[in-house]
């Protein structure tokens, strides 16, 4: 039955892609194949006559292709990305000067002049936003106003957090596997299995780690509630936010997330700058206050406030949610096998004679590792760790599983904060529809963010290469 079904579906394979509309492109492809065939024939002809030279030529051309690919990639990105650091604002400048000339001709108090002045301040503010450094601006709906500030900060937070976890775990595991090799046959088989496990973990796609991190760290199997209603929550203060009749924002602190404060006359509330005010509560039948000062602290008795959570720098909650900490732990899982393998290689490069010398002086195994092997291997270990960090900074798939796309205007303030990272921001911007008529669109912004990312990676790699050269000098 299943087989019949299967065969039936195979027979009616969807081939709508090969309809008549595409016949011309099919012809092109056909001629392309013919040309390719001629080329291959030529190559094989040359091959049979001068195998040595033609193979050498093939090698050179192929190896040059990787250089060409890199050049095209960098050129295309720099070509699109450089304008992002200095977005065009000719239209704004032109309009401003136009307003200037119009204003000088008009009387200062006419309604038209006031309109123009309003427009002028609006434009000046826009110009100021555009002129802010690309590295400080927040993502915005307009391409010229958008920048990478929060994403860059988020990337730094996540990577530093990741390093805090992977350094001890990775180096510890590598030391255990390299320096404490058991002599017992069964134990040796066991450590071989551990090694095999690590090699296989290095081949697991990063998105699978993302799913692991999402389930284990972010939602914690749903065992501890959701991140909106967490099981454990420390260092978080709640307050209710009200908008008074005078359009002022006031806060009333509460003890828990769900507590609704009883509004009463003369109650103390706080403004957003921290100053205290006494509330004036009015009912439906009361007179509406006339003067602005009273209006600014007036609330209806049945007003409903929104919950605002104030997190201290040490705040913590148990389903980690879409937090910096969950992302760091997940990235740690992705990077850990890479760190272990590179640290093992660094340890293996330390000459055996050094260890034997230490053992001859009566050092215990740990003393040998601490005083001899580790100091000798430190440059190599650092190189591996920095290269792993540079991989962590570019890794997007696991974080995508944890946090999705988050639009935020500020970098993370504490470990439980929402965040965005550079690669995700690039992913988001690159997917936005592009209007070709627009001289500065989100492709430019994405390319600008890529330039920053590549510069960070370049810095990391340079440090790693310097360290590697240092290590080679020391040991030889």
């Amino acid at each position, binding site marked *: 039955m*299943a087989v019949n*079904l*299967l065969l039936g579906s195979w027979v009616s394979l*969807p*081939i709508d*892609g*090969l309809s008549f509309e595409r016949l011309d*492109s099919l012809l*092109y*492809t056909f001629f*392309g194949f013919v040309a390719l065939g001629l080329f291959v024939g030529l190559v094989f002809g040359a091959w049979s006559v001068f*195998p*040595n030279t033609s*193979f*050498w030529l093939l*090698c*050179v051309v*192929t*190896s040059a292709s*990787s*250089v060409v690919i890199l050049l095209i990639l960098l050129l*295309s990105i720099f070509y*699109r990305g450089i304008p992002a650091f200095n977005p065009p604002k000719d239209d704004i400048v032109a309009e401003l000067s136009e307003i200037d000339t119009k204003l000088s001709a008009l009387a200062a108090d006419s309604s038209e002049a006031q309109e123009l002045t309003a427009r002028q301040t609006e434009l000046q503010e826009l110009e100021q936003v555009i002129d802010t450094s690309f590295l400080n601006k927040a993502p915005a709906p307009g391409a010229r106003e958008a920048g990478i500030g929060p994403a860059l900060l988020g990337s730094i937070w996540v990577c530093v957090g990741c390093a805090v976890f992977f350094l*001890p*775990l990775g180096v*510890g*595991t590598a*030391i*255990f*596997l390299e320096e*404490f090799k058991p002599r017992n046959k069964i134990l040796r088989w066991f450590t071989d299995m551990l090694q*095999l*496990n690590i090699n*296989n*973990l290095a*081949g*697991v*796609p*990063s*998105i*699978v780690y993302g*799913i*692991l991190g999402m389930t284990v760290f972010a939602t914690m199997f*749903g065992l501890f509630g*959701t991140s909106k209603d967490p099981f454990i929550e420390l260092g978080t203060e709640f307050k209710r936010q009200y908008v008074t009749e005078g359009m002022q924002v006031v806060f009333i602190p509460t003890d828990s997330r769900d507590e609704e404060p009883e509004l009463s006359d003369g109650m103390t509330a706080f403004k957003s700058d921290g100053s205290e005010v006494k509330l004036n509560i009015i009912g439906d039948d009361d007179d509406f206050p006339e003067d602005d000062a009273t209006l600014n602290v007036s609330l209806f008795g049945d007003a409903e406030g929104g919950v605002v959570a104030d997190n201290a720098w040490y705040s913590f909650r148990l389903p980690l949610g879409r937090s910096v900490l969950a992302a760091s732990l997940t990235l740690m899982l992705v990077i850990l096998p890479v760190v*272990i393998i590179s640290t093992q290689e660094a340890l293996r490069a330390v000459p055996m004679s050094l260890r034997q010398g230490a053992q001859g002086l009566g050092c215990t*195994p*740990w003393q040998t590792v601490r005083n001899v092997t580790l100091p000798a291997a430190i440059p190599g270990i650092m190189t591996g760790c920095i*290269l792993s960090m540079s991989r962590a900074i*570019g890794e997007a*798939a696991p974080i*995508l*599983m944890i946090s999705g*796309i988050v639009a935020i205007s500020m970098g993370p303030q504490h470990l439980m904060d929402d965040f965005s990272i550079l*690669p995700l921001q*690039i992913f988001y911007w*690159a*997917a936005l529809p592009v209007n070709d008529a627009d001289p500065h669109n989100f492709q430019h912004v*994405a390319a600008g963010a890529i330039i920053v990312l590549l510069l960070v990676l370049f810095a990391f790699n340079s440090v790693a*290469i310097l360290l590697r050269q240092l290590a080679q000098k020391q040991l030889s």
Partner: protein
Amino acid sequence: MATAQKTAKPAVLERREFRSLAATRFREWFILAALAGCTVFTVMITVTIVCLLIGQTVEFFRMPETSVTDFLFGLKWNPTLGNVKHFGIWPLICGTMWVTVIAMCVALPLGLITAIYLSEYAPRGLRNVLKPILELLAGIPTVVYGFFALVVITPALQAVGIQVDFYNAISAGIAVGILCLPTVASLSEDALRAVPRRLREAAYGLGSTKFDVSLKVVVPAALSGIISAFLLALARAIGETMIVAMAAGALAKLTIDPRQQIQTMTGHMASTATGDISNFDVRYYSIYAVALVLFFITLSLTVLGNFVRKRFQEAYD
């Protein structure tokens, strides 16, 4: 005799008080235990991945909309659209296969020939330039390749006359191929350079040209390493996420035309994650089932790759 020697210490040592070794022994034991703990953590990762994926996949198949037969043999994948939802894995595998095949068509020949050139032909100075360039290519984040596929490869293909859609399998595949090229090149080059000099010299002694030595002596001798490099690159191409999420599209279908948009296994997971997955519905559980399939495919390729390298390595010493 031995006991007599033990008791009769030299007079100088007789009066000296030795530090107790208990503290040192405890420290040694404690540190070893801590390091072993770190190592056990890596085992826990593997165990958690396997248990989690299998457990949640069982949960997926318990849902009324799904069945194991539909998943394994079904030819339709529409978790969001349509009245009757189908969860057949084959459209996703078809998408992954297209991207992987195209990627391998790019990465394998280019990578292998580059490796042969680097190991056999290239002068030292050129090698010192080419290797860092390959490392640079390997270190570029995958989102950058995704962007490259969108803004350069697709328009280039359209300019050449191949009528590809805006999202298509070909440009995603080419980008994944560029991503895998350094992996293939550097792993194959390691294997080629591990072939002892003696073999080359013997071949030269018999009157071989450089071409004969490279293709008829060195490459066969390093074949296990090269095949393992191919398999590892294949695993990497199958597990690649961001490029396909950006450039390959999000429409799962069984197609023989790579110019259309497709969806891969990893692409399905990424597109589910960008949507709202907080509610524990069937779509949320479907990513675990897909991840389980993906995990087993890549794991078997990695295991096979490492096994081939170890088992079929030619030992010359």
